[in-house]
């Protein structure tokens, strides 16, 4: 397949591999062809027809995204015929779209708006179709809002839900003028198998799929003098927030973000990274206990492999898709929820605030976290542990609303306690990060020695490959763990729910001999979460991952169990990992849900 194809695009010669599309060939020589239904993460659809180009000798225009190049082809991307057609197609899309841009959540970030900005200037278009359709907006989900009146039927969301995530909550229903993006029987998203992962939101070119926003609720809490408002920030927010504030992908803005939050008026700016370290302690110990019960005590009914439980999209996915396998999940709550439970107990006591007067806000790269915070089991403190979840995108909006010049902010530090973190918790934001953090701690607990990887960097679990396996042989463990001597601990890392499904099918069929599996619902892990800045692409996610590992490498402490504030919370409050208090506050249960 290393044969080259030669063609001309707009009279420029280009030579590309066989199988390259016209669109890819044009991009190679920096000719921009507009697209809407095309997305780098998804299969080709060729639906929107915005990318049509003219091929010499052909009467009909060709969709550049779907047509492979051929030898001697002559393509024109900017002929009169192309411009007229493209303009009319954009006009058609606008006619079926509720173009109320000024009040739209996606104003300024809408791809249709951007195209109309280029092509439609001061002309009256076609007749508006939206008033004829009787649309309703689905706002029942705590995570995602679906507004069909803004949908342009590009089917990116359906391809995301079906192929990228193997969830199948969204489909195309009906045909012709009635055709629409729908759930099963057009039920509210809240009632179907949606995992709230928000990957559809990340790929929707318009405002048809957005996260449910809690910006106003958060401002109201901040403005209420009665309330003590604490905020926690997830690991993956700090390496992506800058993108939504005119900075380049891969810039680390931890210090500026903390400064901004403080200026916005939060009473305490704390870190989910701290509770990520706590998660490692609880989950790592749970893993060791399970291994002991299986390998040493030969207890029947104890399930391995154990899988991670910090990704709420993954949790809802397994509840729907593999309801008989919930015992494989670690019972440890996610860092967000561990934080929430401790904020209104331990932290409230420490600073002398009534938990009923505390409002707990989290900033997450994730839309599923909004659902997670609303789960009935997440009230360990006696109150809703996390009151409001805002996404990275929402935080960026709030920073703009507050009039803060983000780029010029001086770096600031998190408050204490529950603000200190380690490199291990930072990497929670990338696929493989939880695994790496856990291994750093678990290995040391078992052997008393540091994990034998150069600079603590466990490279085999890093990267963007769909499913990655790594094993680690335990030698000369401490006496308590002698049953692990010579055991090859097998691990697996998967990101994106279609990959999660593949791994779980193996588990289901008894083909997986892993001990520990890390699963993140989103491609790339949390750094590619459904609440992250737009756009998303493999390239952008790679840059975010690099930033995460840079942040890790720059941290003084790289292992969760060495976090002094973690040691402190056990000394002062929790007593011991998996202890009584931990069970009460830091562990949870799961609910089998309908498969269909």
């Amino acid at each position: 397949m290393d044969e080259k194809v030669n063609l001309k695009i707009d009279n420029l010669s280009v030579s590309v591999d066989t199988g390259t599309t016209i669109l890819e060939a044009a991009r190679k020589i920096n000719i921009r062809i507009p697209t809407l239904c095309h997305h780098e993460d998804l299969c080709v659809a060729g639906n929107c027809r915005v990318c049509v180009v003219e091929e010499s000798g052909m009467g009909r225009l060709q969709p550049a995204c779907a047509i492979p190049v051929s030898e001697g082809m002559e393509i024109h991307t900017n002929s009169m015929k192309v411009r007229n057609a493209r303009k009319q197609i954009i006009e058609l899309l606008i006619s079926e779209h509720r173009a109320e841009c000024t009040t739209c959540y996606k104003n300024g970030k809408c791809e249709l708006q951007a195209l109309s900005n280029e092509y439609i200037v001061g002309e009256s278009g076609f007749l508006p179709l939206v008033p004829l359709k009787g649309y309703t907006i689905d706002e029942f989900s705590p995570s995602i809002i679906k507004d069909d009146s803004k949908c342009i039927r590009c089917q990116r969301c359906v391809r995301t839900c079906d192929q990228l995530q193997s969830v199948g909550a969204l489909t195309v229903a009906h045909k012709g003028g009635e055709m629409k993006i729908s759930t099963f029987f057009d039920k509210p998203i809240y009632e179907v198998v949606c995992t709230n992962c928000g990957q559809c939101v990340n790929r929707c070119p318009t405002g048809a799929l957005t996260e449910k926003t809690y910006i106003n609720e958060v401002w109201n809490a901040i403005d209420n003098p009665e309330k003590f408002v604490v905020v926690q920030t997830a690991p993956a927010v700090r390496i992506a927030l800058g993108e939504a504030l005119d900075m380049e992908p891969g810039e680390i803005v931890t210090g500026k973000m903390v400064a901004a939050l403080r200026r916005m008026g939060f009473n305490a700016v704390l870190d989910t990274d701290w509770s990520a370290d706590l998660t490692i302690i609880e989950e790592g110990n749970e893993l060791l206990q399970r291994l002991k019960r299986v390998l040493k005590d030969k207890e029947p009914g104890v399930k391995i492999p154990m899988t991670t439980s910090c990704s709420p999209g993954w949790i809802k996915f397994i509840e729907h898709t593999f309801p008989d396998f919930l015992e494989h999940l670690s019972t440890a709550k996610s860092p967000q929820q561990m934080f929430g439970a401790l904020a209104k107990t331990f932290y409230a006591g420490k600073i002398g605030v009534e938990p009923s007067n505390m409002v707990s806000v989290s900033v997450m790269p994730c839309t599923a976290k909004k659902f997670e915070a609303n789960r009935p089991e997440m009230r360990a403190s006696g109150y809703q542990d996390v009151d409001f979840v805002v996404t990275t995108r929402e935080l960026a909006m709030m920073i703009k609303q507050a009039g803060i010049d983000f780029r010029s902010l001086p770096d600031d530090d998190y408050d204490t306690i529950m603000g200190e973190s380690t490199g291990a918790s930072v990497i929670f934001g990338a696929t493989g990060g939880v695994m790496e953090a856990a291994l750093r701690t678990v290995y040391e607990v078992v052997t008393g020695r540091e994990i034998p990887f150069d600079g603590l960097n466990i490279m085999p679990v890093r990267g963007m490959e769909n499913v990655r396996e790594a094993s680690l042989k335990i030698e000369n463990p401490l006496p308590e763990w002698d049953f692990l001597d010579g055991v090859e601990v097998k691990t697996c890392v998967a990101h994106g729910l279609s990959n999660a499904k593949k791994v779980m099918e193996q588990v289901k069929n008894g083909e997986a001999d892993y001990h520990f599996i890390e699963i993140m619902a989103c491609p790339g892990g949390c750094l590619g979460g459904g609440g992250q800045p737009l756009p998303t692409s493999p390239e952008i996610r790679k840059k975010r991952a690099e930033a995460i590992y840079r942040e890790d490498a720059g941290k003084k402490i790289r292992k969760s169990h060495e976090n002094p504030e973690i040691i402190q919370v056990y000394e002062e409050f929790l007593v011991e990992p998996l202890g009584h208090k931990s069970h009460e506050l830091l562990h949870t249960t799961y609910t089998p849900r309908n498969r269909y």
Partner: protein
Amino acid sequence: MKKGLKRLDLIFKNEHDCDVILKKSLNRSNEELVEDLISSGLKGRGGAGFPTGLKWKLTAEAPGDEKYVICNADEGEPGTFKDREILSSVPHKVLTGMAICGRIVGAQRGFIYLRGEYKFLIPELQKAINDFHELTDKMKLPFRVEIFTGAGAYICGEESALFESMEGHRGEPRNKPPYPTDAGYRNRPTVINNVETLAHTYSILKYGPEKFRDLGVKDSRGSKVFSVSGDTPIPGIYELEFGMTLQKFVDDFGDGDAKAVQVGGAAGFCVPRKKFDKTVIGYQGKLTGISLPTGGSMMIFNSSRSMYNVLHNYLDFFVEESCGQCTPCRVGTQQLLLGIEAVKRGDKSSQYLEKLLELAETMRVTAKCGLGQSVANSFSSIVENFREEMIY
């Protein structure tokens, strides 16, 4: 009946010599058979007019461990009903064509995709298939035909949508390439032919390519089955030679007051009276006054008919039957319909028709499949020729 166009009797001729035709054909090489088809000049009778011999040749040459022969009986084009008649009166001819095709391309399975509206044909058709299987079993020809029924979707007559439908999906046309000859049903090389096309192969195999070739005109060889409806005293199914002028056709079939003929169904062209004598029915050319392609639908409208109503009916049909996946077709059809309504009501000036004509042209060059592309045919030909009827 008036003297006029030559009526032919190839397709519906009552002949039951499948065994002879099969035996005779199976004794010849695939190359010879394909050569006969190619030299006969037979082109697809569904409307698109792709040379049948070439289609079989390409499929035979395409690599693939499994291949299929599909008979497209999703006859949904308004004004077309000849495939129904062929399937009910001479199904054995169609089956013979499929079996020979199977031998040539290397397919052992054939399917008849029958539109849901024709379910009532199934008992008789299945019986014909069973009889045919007895015959092929006797001849040790490993070829089996199954019926697959549609469920009310015009677009499934588009070949790639038909494959999607058979595979359990929504009937949404695929991007092309790849073409069915390389990747059709189940992404394997597939011959998909219209019912009538397959029936013609029977005649060609029986009487030889010359006899077929002698009929018709250059580039439009053979006979064609026409579905005649509308304002005619003698609606029905007629086998005629290609190459007639529309004037001759109207002289024979019209009621003496024909003001327009819609050639090729809702997806076809509307020809006004003044162009009858310049319009020839055949494959080559577009609406150039030279010749018009058709799947055989001929709808005659007399002067009592409102061409606005005719166009409105077509557009209403397209709005419902578009699969909805591509922008030009999904939204374009709705805009054309709303647009002519607005002009007729006087909500939009007649100038808006120009914008709609432009839109139709955009649909023709940008829509994903034949449905969206051909909406422009009827739209433009009706609006341009009967503009005064469109205006408030």
